[in-house]
């Protein structure tokens, strides 16, 4: 078993974990107008982390069951990607399956530690996955700020507070939960991330990626060029565990014909058993041709036309209360979360006021988060010790 506080784990260990969130969400302002309320079980995951050889060999597997619990996604105004619009798509069943070798050269690279990760999972780009962050509702920028569920080969070198990661992977996004990455496309895309940790709890990253034809599996789509930078902090604030993230990212497609930008800030304070959080987001997204189901867009693309670009300004606040003693393996946390989104036309013919029949879209979610051994877990990195390295009492225990 891992020892989360020592970093001196001599033998092999294995650590299962899991979580699920039961939530009811009510939205005013859905495609075509009107409101919609629905109850869903979201983010049901089973995880397995393992290590051996003094954590020089690490393994992570994540089984995501959203393909069963939300096959048609969950209502989430502003969300888009993988053929879903205003609904968050379900992730693939095999969300992560990554084998990592760390400190491969021992002392040969002096103070540096060199690692290699192979498998399916997050490529080194951008910020942590929203699933491991305070707000339940995914940000609009998910497909701009993270690259996930790819078959990848990623190398990393860490020296003191600096870490550099680079990966090659397949550009294609999954089209359905049971789909695997297209292996013959592995290598058509790349990413790199530079991370600086100048002091305890502070992390800055700068990422760059070229993703070939992400939305057309056979590869006919235009490449997506991405930039991302963010500053993440966690630590005590007046003795209250706290967390904050400031993020900017940009994606351009079709040689710069389409450009999407995002700015996001989120923070959480965790006094005692309470969790209070807030997120501000301003993100641009493509307005694509929808199917007769107005929550879906045509996949794969028929061409490179869209209806325009909209900019979504979203404020989200939330409150949670842990029913279980803080720091335990099991967490049960009821929560309530409210969001107000204001979409505006940037370019094109798409007019949100006509499409949603209102200028401001509001949503309210109430639910219960159940987690087992998920405290301190971060999604999106494979050798920064999310399990086996010391952590402060994180505010992002999801």
């Amino acid at each position, binding site marked *: 078993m891992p020892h989360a506080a020592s970093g001196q784990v001599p033998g092999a260990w294995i650590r299962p974990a899991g979580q699920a969130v039961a939530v009811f969400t009510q939205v005013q302002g859905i495609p075509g107008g009107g409101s919609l309320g629905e109850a869903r079980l979201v983010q049901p995951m089973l995880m397995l982390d393992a290590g051996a050889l003094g954590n020089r060999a690490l393994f992570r597997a994540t089984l995501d069951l959203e393909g069963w619990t939300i096959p048609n996604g969950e209502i989430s105004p502003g969300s888009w990607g993988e053929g879903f619009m205003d609904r968050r798509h379900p992730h693939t069943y095999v969300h992560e399956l990554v084998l990592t070798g760390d400190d491969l050269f021992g002392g040969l690279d002096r103070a540096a530690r060199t690692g290699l990760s192979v498998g399916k999972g997050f490529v080194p780009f951008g910020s942590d996955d929203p699933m491991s962050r305070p707000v339940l509702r995914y940000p609009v920028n998910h497909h701009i700020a993270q690259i996930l569920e790819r078959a990848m080969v990623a190398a990393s070198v860490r020296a003191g507070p600096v870490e550099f990661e680079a990966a090659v992977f397949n550009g294609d996004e999954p089209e359905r939960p049971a789909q695997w990455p297209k292996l013959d496309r592995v290598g058509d895309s790349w990413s790199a991330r530079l991370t600086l940790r100048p002091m305890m709890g502070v992390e800055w990253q700068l990422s760059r990626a070229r993703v070939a034809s992400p939305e057309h599996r056979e*590869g*006919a789509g235009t490449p997506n060029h991405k930039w991302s930078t963010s500053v993440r902090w966690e630590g005590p604030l007046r003795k209250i565990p706290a967390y904050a993230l400031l993020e900017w990212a940009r994606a351009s497609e*079709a040689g710069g014909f389409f450009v999407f930008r995002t700015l996001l800030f989120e923070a959480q304070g965790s006094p005692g058993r309470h969790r209070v959080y807030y997120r501000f987001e301003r993100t641009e997204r493509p307005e694509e*041709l*929808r199917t007769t189901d107005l929550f879906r867009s045509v*996949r794969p693309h028929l*061409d490179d036309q869209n*209806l*325009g670009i909209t900019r979504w300004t979203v404020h989200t606040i939330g409150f949670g209360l842990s029913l279980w003693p803080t720091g335990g393996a099991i967490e049960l946390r009821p929560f309530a979360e409210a969001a107000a989104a204001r979409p505006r036309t940037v370019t094109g*013919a798409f007019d949100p006021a006509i499409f949603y029949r209102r200028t401001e879209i509001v949503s309210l979610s109430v639910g219960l988060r159940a987690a087992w051994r998920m405290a301190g877990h971060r999604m999106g990195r494979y050798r920064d010790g999310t399990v086996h390295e010391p952590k402060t009492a994180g505010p992002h225990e999801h």
Partner: protein
Amino acid sequence: MSTSLKVRRLGVLAALAAGSALLRCGDGIGPTALSVALVSGNGQSDTVGRTLATPLVVQVTREGAPATDVAVSWSVLSGGGSLSFATPSTTDNLGIARAAFTLGPLAGQQRAQARVAGASGSPVVFTAGASADRPAQITPSGGSGQTDAPGRPLAVPFAALVRDQHGNPIPGVWVQWTVTAGGGSLSADSTGTDGTGTALVTLTLGSAPGPNTVAGTVSGVAGSATFSATGAHQPILVASVPIPPFYGIHDTYVRDGLAFVFAWDRGVMIFDVGNGIQSGSPADPRLVSSLVTSGGDVHNGWWFHNPVSRENRYLFIGQEGPGSIGSSSLGDIHVVDVSNLPDPREVAFYHMEGAGPHNFWMDESRQILYAAYYNGGVVALDVSGTLAGNLASRALDTIAPGAPSNTFIWGVQLYNGSLYAIDMLSGFWQLGVDTTSGTLTIAAGGNNVPERYGSDLWVAGGYAYTGTWGFRTQPGNAVKVWQLGPTGSPALVHTIVTPGIGTVSDVEVSPDGRLLMFSAEQGSSAGFHFYDLTNPAAPALIATYPVSTGVHTATFGTINGRLYAFGAKNPFDPALLILDVTPLLP
């Protein structure tokens, strides 16, 4: 050793080997050898299963004298017959041996042989002609199961096969034909079987939709050959040609038995579907050549038949680059020289800043290409003479009938001296055309489909039909019917709304003006939709051909007197679908 000496020595060795082999061959060549010869019985004919009238006879001699008590081995070589002879079969005192040959069941030539060990002339082979027995059975051998429009002659005649009890086809037998259901008519009351035992007759379907049946009988033969056909207004899939999935297939242009398939990053693919250059047909399209024009994104085209130069040299291709409806678009017109169809070459282009072409129409007699432009309006290009390089100087006029940021033209069509344009944003327009200068002016229409985005158009018989796309405030599930006034101005007279579709992606009227077709994408009713235009102001639905993954475009083509619909199945498992829609014609 020189090469010539080697060759000479090899030749000597080869000659020695051949001589040696010859000495070893033969059936007992020597001074005291036996000989066997055919005496009689060869070349007879009779009906299968019967014994030939004359036995097969051979004579064996030794040095010219009859050889007695020589064993003769009889066997059948072909036809499945049998031989009857004395046992053991030996020659008599005249050197004679004989066998009776009963023909086998297979009509045609049958063979038997007599073999004498060590005798020259052995084996002696007899042939006999076996003719079929009396007609015993009649069965259908082709043409059944067709569907066509009521009242139309079937494309393939019914074929009945007449055979004897052994299954041998019998030529020269008269088959009596009878319509047993459906009320159709036959090309003949009776027809004779040909050399393959087959008799043919063509059914003209009854005037009412429904099953038609025909029976073929032969006098003295029990039973009949029964055939069925269906009279229905129903399209028939004759071919599905997979297209590489690199955005797949977008549009098809059909002319002179060639189908130009515009397949995005795989370029234009030219299929012979009846032209003859590759012996293709609608049921068996043959790829002639393909070409990826500069930048790919190959979307649509027009094969220009120039009546002035009498050349069919240029293929105009629209490149649909990235675009954002209502704000920007990219793409060029590419000109491909297809005078050598197996080797097309790109020779010219036209570029319009900030806009991209979508669909074309040509005034071929005046050599003017009208191009619908996303974010650019309508462009008139002079395409006379030889085309090369940048065609910027060929632009005659450009018009954006909608306001700025409100013009995204999907398609254009010249009709009765007016140019009609359908704009995704500002609706259906009538444009005036100065046919000498190519100057374009707004004549009528516009801003007349506010609730939906516009899509394709077709103008025929004094009416125009326009499609709708995507979701504006209403889904793009409508076809608008416009009546053209005395000046050609459009007035909306009818709207066809089809539940279960998200986009009407293409609209076309058949060359004879009797059939309206549109393709549909998204939803449970995606596919082809066909309407009877007997009343052009209120088209009547007569058939659909569902394609669950959607049809992006649909184009009519007439080949060998039949009407086909060429559909672009997209986006999943892209394919060129070819439907025979002749049965739909009213």
